[in-house]
């Protein structure tokens, strides 16, 4: 009797711990289900026969690949993917490059009104992006850039958020490191290329991913600067599946399923950098 009580007293904390863990896992599983459901639904719907997207069964009864075939053969998605890739890669690379150069200048160089200019730039982040649409459109149109890749890429190259993110990070780089390089005779581009960029690589990778993703999924701007189907990007192409009265769900989901592939691949490959980058610069030491 006595022993038994002792026994249960020993077990209790473990059992509580087990229960806690189980509870935690239950919550996590629920959360994962909520997050994954739309993705799984998209993938399953992509394999369903048209007209059967809302049938009660979850697993398609007679799975088909025809949605994927039609998306590429009839709806020209190969072209849209090509366009999206050109725009997102070019914009991602250029915007990141410009942001790193600007952040270097703001972090390591001194020039007239530096802090005031930086404050104005950061303040511009407070203006809702939609406010820029009409003026930017007017400029692009006056430049005669309508229906070009330039129109889709150039207006978003100045990325103040990226500048801010990188400058805050670069501010944490010890000045003595830069001074040592200077003593060894390194010029600004050498310091930038050999010291700062390698150090800031996680943040740079994060910024590239964010800008790539922004351009990959940007709809409104790409829609209004293109009047040619041959220049449509994936989001605009996806919108074509919603018609006046019907939405071609199976085709839309097939195209969406393919459209998340590049982002997923990049994310998986760069995941380490991505997570690291988001927390870098969070604390200034």
């Amino acid at each position: 009797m006595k022993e038994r009580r002792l026994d249960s007293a020993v077990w209790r904390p473990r059992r509580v711990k087990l229960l806690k863990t189980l509870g935690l896992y239950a919550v996590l599983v629920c959360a994962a289900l909520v997050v994954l459901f739309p993705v799984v639904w998209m993938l399953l719907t992509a394999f369903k026969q048209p007209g059967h997207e809302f049938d009660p069964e979850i697993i398609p009864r007679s799975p088909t690949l025809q949605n994927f075939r039609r998306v590429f053969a009839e709806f020209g998605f190969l072209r849209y993917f090509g366009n999206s890739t050109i725009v997102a890669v070019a914009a991602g690379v250029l915007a990141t490059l410009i942001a790193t150069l600007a952040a270097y200048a703001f972090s390591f160089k001194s020039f007239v009104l530096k802090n005031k200019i930086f404050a104005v730039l950061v303040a511009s982040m407070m203006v809702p992006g939609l406010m820029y649409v009409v003026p930017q459109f007017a400029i692009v149109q006056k430049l005669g850039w309508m229906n070009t890749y330039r129109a889709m890429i150039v207006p978003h190259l100045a990325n103040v958020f990226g500048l801010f993110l990188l400058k805050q990070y670069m501010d944490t780089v010890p000045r003595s490191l830069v001074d040592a390089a200077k003593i060894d005779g390194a010029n600004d581009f050498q310091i930038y290329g050999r010291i700062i960029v390698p150090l800031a690589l996680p943040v740079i990778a994060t910024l590239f991913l964010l800008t790539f993703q922004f351009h990959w999924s940007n709809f409104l701007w790409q829609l209004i600067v293109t009047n040619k189907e041959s220049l449509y990007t994936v989001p605009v192409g996806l919108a074509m599946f919603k018609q006046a009265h019907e939405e071609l769900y199976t085709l839309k989901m097939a195209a969406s399923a393919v459209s998340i592939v590049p982002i997923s691949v990049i994310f998986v490959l760069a995941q380490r950098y991505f997570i690291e980058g988001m927390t870098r610069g969070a604390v200034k030491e």
Partner: protein
Amino acid sequence: MKKLVVLLCAVSLLACGGCAREKAKQGVVLTVWETYNTEERALFLSLVQEFQQANPGIAVEAVSIPFDGLEPKILTALATNTAPDIGRVDVGFLPKVAIRGALMALDQYGVEAAKPNLRPVALSSCMIEGRTYGLPDQVNGLCLFYNKEMFAKAGLDPAKPPATWEEFVACARKLTDKQAGVYGFGMRNSLWWSLPFIYSFGGDILTRDKKCALADDGSVAGFQFKADLYSKYGIEGGAWRAGGVRDDMGFQSRKYAMVFNGPWAVKGLEQGGIDFGVALVPSGPAGYATNVGGNNLVVFSTCKHPAEASRFLMFLTSKEAQARWANELGQIPVNMLAEDLIDFTKHPYLKTFMEQMKYAKPRPQTGSYPEIENALNPEMQAALDGKKSVKEAMESGCKLVTEILGEEEDLEASLKR
């Protein structure tokens, strides 16, 4: 999105005017922004071919725009004077751009000759203050779709759909089996989808002198009946609720035996293997009625070749072209002469659709219809939910509508000055 549209509207006001467009090609090139679906587009392009052959020197360049992307795109284009020559716009959107001076009145370009043969309810959506701001492209209204198989199973005659609202309720009661999750009816909440109820009870959106009529007796009775279908009679499956099974999907999955729908739904239902029939929306105290939807083809005021553009629009609304829309795609022809050329054996429902359009009532030609709809929908939702009485909801909705109409009037007055 709404903010954007308001913003773009404001800018477009400042900038509507003449436009300089370079035309590299020889002859006249007409750019068309269209929002057709895949099969419609194929037919449209074949009609374009035909037109170009018959009219050498006029080239038509069609650009397909996502249906939901058209309005922001047009408003941005208007703000910068880069609108195309021709656009395909929703009937509810036309007055908004017309009143702001962005559309060209086509009366002086010979459209008069085409007008007598066009379905009046479709043509009326292009007319503002006696001027013709486009020609109809497509017209439709809601009808009652019913599942014949479910009718037979409930002991009802599949050849006899309900003709009055009383019959409708009796019918739906027999079709409803709450245990099995099956309901006689599935409905959608929004002003447009409520119009068949409101009209058939003698209600309207605006009175003749442009005051809100939604809190008047007829409108309240009509919407009260709609709300009762769910709360009092229990024959409606809650399709309008957040998280409910939407009407068309529930009809597809045999959860709702009857729904409102239009010609566009036929193909999908046939594909889904549903044995369905189409009937007129049941009649109420004010007789048969339905709403009007569709699209119009308009010429923007920056178009440099309005005569050619008008000729193209008249070609598209011609008897022959419209017969193709009907025969190939089962759509209601906007040209009434085309009815003689229709093969009804191929499109058995088309007769009902056309019959229903005789009882269709166009929406008021106000530039603020989309805003009116947005103001009313939450009020109607509250009434359906039982959070407000129908009368209360319609009255507070009307207050908002009066404000919207006031703003619209001020705007129109300032534009005229």
